[in-house]
């Protein structure tokens, strides 16, 4: 296909700079714009996702800034009540559906799954590109809903407000989420089949890197859970437009049914966000501790266990809705079970580090932050799965703090760790370790300043989703807003030094951190268009550092 018609100087320069030290790699083998927009290369599709989700992250972050600015004072003096509702709704929808869910699976998963299993591409490259364009179309539709005037239901779309009373653009937003949901389903389907059918010779299931186990478990959740939210949003649209009674009690429906269906997907969606991060943590900790992963099998199975348990705990979001107290007791007990595989992972990582030759490079600093914040997020989840304390804490800032410790402390820091860890592989360049470590530290400090006060605010009874609050809550809210400023700096720094490194950074060798998995040992940095010169043959476990601890790798 002649695809050089749209070749531009900018793209040519971009590709030339990226690959100036390698003969041919996936960045420089074709310079045209069409070669990017119609690429079937999983690595380029991963980069398309990277650019798009970063833009969505900036938008979601700006909305968070507006929320924190409003909450700086007890009175509503920056946003109106209605605008505030729309701001936190848009923040939640963008960050969850358009940044967190596609972050690690679509960016790092796309780039790394074939490389880590010794394949030339994913099982269905065209479907992979189609998934990206579904994501893009869903994003455009959702942004259209925001530009038209936004949605004020909260990201949870609870009925009957969303189906009957809200005067905002619920249907348009639901269509956007419906479309982006299919992107998620198809990506999950692609990865499951890729892992099943395209592993290179010798790569048995228990020789798979733990990142692949994490992505595989995530894909199962995406495949089984996402259709439910698609159908649920469809039912919401049917009730809102045609007046068919499904969730509205006046029409014979049940609003709690919406919550059951919504959370059947949206609780496992938390694991779509966090499971890949757990996979990144296993990779980074093994590499930077120069140790074989402690309890490889149990970590692999705990990923599957989290995916399965994630499907049987959803109603812990609904303890105060009027659902049956007997069913609530069952869900409370089941929710505690999720702590077991999560705890197994954390203890296994600690045991992996114990006695290791730990190096404090940027990815590891991010993972240290991840470990602490994810643990706090998980432990506070146990407070909320306890029926009695949940009655007090439900819909307060305690909840907001808890899920941000999981989703930012866990998922985002894991994503940042992974992005830094594999950046030399993706770009062939090394970023500045100084700026990397500084951004990791600032992010950690800013995050805790932002969200720890919210635990106290919630415990003291400040409800979420209000734009005004009593005066006595102001000090902690000022802490939180100040922390958000620090956090924003931590987030923005990588947006400067990482692109800078792409153009001007020191050249990375094929394995700058001494990783032991296939993407490090068998490909160049950046990889060639078809990944491997010849199909690798795997003869040993993924982490084989015994006797190599002393071999400090310089980069």
């Amino acid at each position, binding site marked *: 296909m002649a695809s050089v018609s749209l070749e531009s100087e900018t793209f040519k320069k971009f590709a030339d700079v990226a690959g100036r030290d390698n003969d041919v790699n996936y960045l420089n083998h074709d310079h045209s714009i069409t070669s990017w927009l119609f690429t079937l290369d999983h690595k380029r599709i991963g980069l398309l996702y990277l650019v798009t989700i970063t833009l969505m992250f900036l938008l979601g972050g700006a909305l968070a800034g507006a929320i924190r600015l409003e909450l700086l004072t007890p009175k509503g003096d920056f946003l109106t009540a209605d605008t505030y509702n729309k701001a936190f709704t848009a923040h939640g929808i963008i960050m969850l559906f358009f940044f967190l869910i596609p972050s690690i699976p679509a960016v790092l998963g796309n780039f790394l799954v074939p490389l880590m299993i010794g394949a030339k591409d994913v099982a269905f490259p065209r479907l992979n590109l189609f998934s990206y364009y579904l994501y893009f179309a869903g994003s455009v539709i959702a942004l259209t809903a925001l530009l038209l005037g936004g949605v004020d239901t909260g990201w949870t779309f609870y009925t009957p407000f969303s189906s009957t009373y809200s005067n905002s653009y619920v249907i348009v937003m639901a269509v956007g989420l419906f479309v982006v949901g299919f992107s998620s389903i198809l990506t999950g389907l692609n990865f499951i089949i890729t892992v099943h059918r395209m592993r290179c010779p010798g790569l048995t299931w228990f020789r798979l890197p733990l990142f692949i186990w994490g992505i595989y478990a995530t894909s199962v959740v995406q495949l*089984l859970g996402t259709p*439910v939210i698609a159908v649920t949003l469809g039912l919401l649209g049917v009730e809102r437009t045609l007046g068919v009674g499904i969730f509205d009690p006046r029409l014979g429906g049940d609003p*709690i*049914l919406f919550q*059951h269906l919504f959370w*059947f997907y949206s609780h496992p969606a938390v694991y779509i966000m966090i499971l890949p991060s757990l996979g990144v943590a296993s990779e980074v900790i093994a590499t930077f501790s120069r140790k074989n992963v402690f309890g490889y099998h149990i970590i692999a199975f705990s990923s599957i266990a989290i995916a399965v348990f994630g*499907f*049987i705990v*959803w*109603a812990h979001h609904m303890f105060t809705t*009027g*659902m*049956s107290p*007997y*069913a609530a007791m*069952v*869900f409370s007990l089941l929710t505690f079970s999720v702590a077991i595989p999560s705890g197994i992972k954390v203890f296994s990582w600690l045991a992996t580090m114990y006695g290791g030759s730990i190096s404090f490079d940027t990815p590891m600093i991010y993972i240290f932050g991840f470990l602490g914040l994810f643990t706090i997020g998980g432990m506070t989840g146990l407070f909320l799965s306890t029926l009695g304390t949940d009655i007090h804490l439900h819909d307060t800032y305690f909840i907001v703090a808890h899920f941000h410790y999981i989703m930012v402390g866990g998922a985002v820091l894991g994503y940042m760790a992974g992005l830094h860890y594999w950046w030399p592989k993706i770009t062939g360049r090394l970023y500045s370790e100084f700026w990397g470590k500084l951004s990791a530290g600032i992010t950690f400090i800013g995050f805790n300043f932002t969200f720890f006060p919210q635990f106290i605010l919630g415990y003291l009874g400040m409800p979420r989703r209000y734009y005004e609050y009593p005066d006595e809550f102001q000090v902690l809210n000022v802490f939180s807003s100040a922390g958000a400023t620090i956090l924003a700096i931590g987030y923005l720094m990588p947006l400067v030094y990482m692109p800078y490194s792409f153009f001007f950074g020191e050249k990375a060798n094929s394995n700058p951190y001494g990783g032991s998995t296939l993407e490090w040992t068998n490909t160049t940095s950046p990889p060639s268009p078809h990944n491997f010169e010849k199909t690798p043959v795997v003869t040993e476990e993924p982490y084989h550092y015994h006797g190599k601890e002393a071999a400090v790798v310089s980069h």
Partner: protein
Amino acid sequence: MATTEHSTHQPAPLSLYLATFGMLMFLTILTIFAGFQNFGMWSTPIALGIAGVKAALVVVIFMHGYSSSPLTWVIILASMFFMTIMLGLMLSDYMSRGWAM
């Protein structure tokens, strides 16, 4: 395994698809008819039963379940298992809720 799967897959005659389509239409009409009858507590089980038969026809005939590999059936049964979890745990709420309050 792929060879085995292909070798067991026989293209179904067009008449089978047409007959299945006819059966689905008949069951749809039956659903509507049943919806206007008062079966008391059996209304929902009857409606779900008809829907289950329709879904089975689609999976077995239209989605070629009848000639698929055992692995495909594992996927089909696993999906049904997850749906059972969803409906079962949801019903644990509805069947034990204090409706009289």
